[in-house]
């Protein structure tokens, strides 16, 4: 028997479309496995020729999930072009909407996309492994998911004017201040959101013991971690400095101004995917594989800086005796801790008197011809890098999307899970689900890191070494 290939397409319960191919050797053991992002994104090119002020609104259209993240990084890149720093109120309000975005996105991943695996198990029948079954068996959990996402979305709508593609975040700050009533209405919704998040965290940690095999094999390998930290080295989502650590927790780089990201991050292109593969330059490609997102943010940080999140942060750090947590399954845990942090931090920011100031935006003309904006999106560190002429017309754009930073790690994770769970002689649905589930740990947003074009069929194809299809499995 020759080599065979298994294709999972599309990968389900993620944002966007991708496929996974699994190559079997002559003995039907998994030889290799890869994630292919099958969508094309052309935003860098589309933005050329546009006035800089349009960029936050334009690039926010990259994605319907995290438009706020793009608007934040984009506006920061524009701040950089103008050589301005928004007033404190503008910065605080941007921070609040960014955290609201992270909360609603994390809630979507945990409750709607991933919880069916936790509740029903990875080997449950596919027709049961979804949110609809969850509604039947765990209606309160399903309601909690809706309410927690609504909490984040409501803040985005209240501040930004609309839930999807708000235009309130602008170069120099934000377009209007908030009232006391708005502040009070958000504050009033915080206790319920916090209670929901804590309930989810309790459920998750109490059930972790059921997933030992998955924890041990879901992209559990040494890698670097990268993200933003503040001056104290604590978790940071809006501003701060880049920090790289290795798998032992040694700090490789610290205090890096994100404007100089190109000195540390290289970008490789692979033939079989539209998603580029960033890497840590000093180690080269592909050895410079690093991870970003919730797990990385907690791994690189000294603390969260809010009371309840810090209690959980300590427990998280104890998983690997203070060293970085390498098991990608713990992205879910980190995500829940970040939700708690986000809610607490929003409360802190709203209670800062300066947040209500009416000075919310700095105005200037173009003062630089290059601007870089960087922030933490739900899925990791996001870079917007613009070149503009003296009239403010964009002449070049480079985007490193959060999901893209994890591309090398996702590929390595898919391979590890496939080799652990998949038997080429007896391909079980549960094994294929685990291959997809490792991707869901990273919560990739592929419509964002690329862009949709066409409809991908819902099939798994098993092919021999001549690429002849020998088996087709319909999924979904």
């Amino acid at each position, binding site marked *: 028997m020759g080599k065979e290939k298994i294709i999972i397409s599309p990968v*389900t*319960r993620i*944002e966007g479309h991708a496929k996974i191919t699994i190559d079997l050797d002559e003995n039907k053991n998994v030889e290799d496995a890869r994630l292919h992002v099958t969508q094309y994104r052309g935003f860098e090119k589309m933005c050329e020729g546009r006035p800089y002020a349009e960029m936050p609104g334009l690039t926010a*259209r990259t994605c*319907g*999930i995290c438009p706020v993240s793009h608007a934040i990084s984009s506006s920061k890149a524009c701040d950089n072009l103008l050589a301005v720093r928004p007033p404190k109120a503008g910065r605080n309000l941007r921070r609040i909407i960014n955290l609201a975005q992270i909360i609603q996105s994390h809630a*979507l991943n945990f409750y*709607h*996309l991933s919880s069916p695996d936790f509740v029903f198990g990875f080997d449950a029948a596919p027709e049961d492994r*979804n*949110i*609809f079954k969850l*509604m*039947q068996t765990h*209606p309160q959990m*399903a*309601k909690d*998911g*809706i*309410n927690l*996402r*609504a909490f984040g*979305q409501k803040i985005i709508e209240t501040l930004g004017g609309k*839930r*999807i*593609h708000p235009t309130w975040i602008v170069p120099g700050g934000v377009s209007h201040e908030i009232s006391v009533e708005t502040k009070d209405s958000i504050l009033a919704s915080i206790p319920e959101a916090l209670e929901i998040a804590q309930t989810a965290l309790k459920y998750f940690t109490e059930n972790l013991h059921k997933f030992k095999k998955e924890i041990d094999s879901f992209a559990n390998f040494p890698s670097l971690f990268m993200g933003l930290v503040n001056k104290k080295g604590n978790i940071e989502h809006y501003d701060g400095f880049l920090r790289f650590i290795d798998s032992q927790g040694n700090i490789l780089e610290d205090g890096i101004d994100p404007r100089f990201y190109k000195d540390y991050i290289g970008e490789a292109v692979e033939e079989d995917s539209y998603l580029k593969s960033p890497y840590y330059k000093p180690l080269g490609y592909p050895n410079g594989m690093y991870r970003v997102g919730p797990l990385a943010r907690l791994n690189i940080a000294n603390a969260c800086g809010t009371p309840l999140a810090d209690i959980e942060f300590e427990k998280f750090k104890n998983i690997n005796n203070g060293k970085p947590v390498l098991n990608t399954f713990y992205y879910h845990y980190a995500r829940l801790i970040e939700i708690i942090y986000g809610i607490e931090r929003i409360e802190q920011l709203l209670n800062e008197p300066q947040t209500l100031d009416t000075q919310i935006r700095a105005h200037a003309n173009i003062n630089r011809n290059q601007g870089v904006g960087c922030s933490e999106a739900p899925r990791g560190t996001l870079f917007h890098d613009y070149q503009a002429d003296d009239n403010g017309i964009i002449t070049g754009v480079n985007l490193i999307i959060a999901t893209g930073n994890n591309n090398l790690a996702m590929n390595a994770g898919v391979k590890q899970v496939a080799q652990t769970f998949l038997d080429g002689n007896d391909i079980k649905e549960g094994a294929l689900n685990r291959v997809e589930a490792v991707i869901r740990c990273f919560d990739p947003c592929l419509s964002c890191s690329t862009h949709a074009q066409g409809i991908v069929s819902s099939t798994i194809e098993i092919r021999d070494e001549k690429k002849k299809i020998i088996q087709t499995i319909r999924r*979904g």
Partner: protein
Amino acid sequence: MTIIVGFGNDLRGEDGFGIDVIKKLQNYDLPNTKLISTFQLTPELSLELKEATRLIFIDATFSNINNYSLACNLEEYKHDQLSHHISIRTILMILERLYNTKPEYELYSMFTNSFNEIIDEKNYEKAIKKVVEFIKTVN
């Protein structure tokens, strides 16, 4: 209460049909009626819709034939996995399973194959008018 939800992307040509119908409906004082216009249906929309005794959804649906004609067929909407956007069927299921409410519902879906621009403005407007008049009459 009747809630009318128009959804679509008004930057994508005839996909904005639902949004444009809602814009027109805003000119009328429909009794006990709430109008919602949104890019896409999301899970948290159910928090607003659970108050409804009657729901009307308006959108555009892909078809290569009979463009600008209206259909009312929920079978067009797959029983999808919940993600960042969901179908009408899913919304109805959420309302029933989580909030124990089963409002009457209607769907006005305009056939189109143009999600880039409005190809035939006259027929597009005619379809909008047809839905608006029908909703006004029924109300």
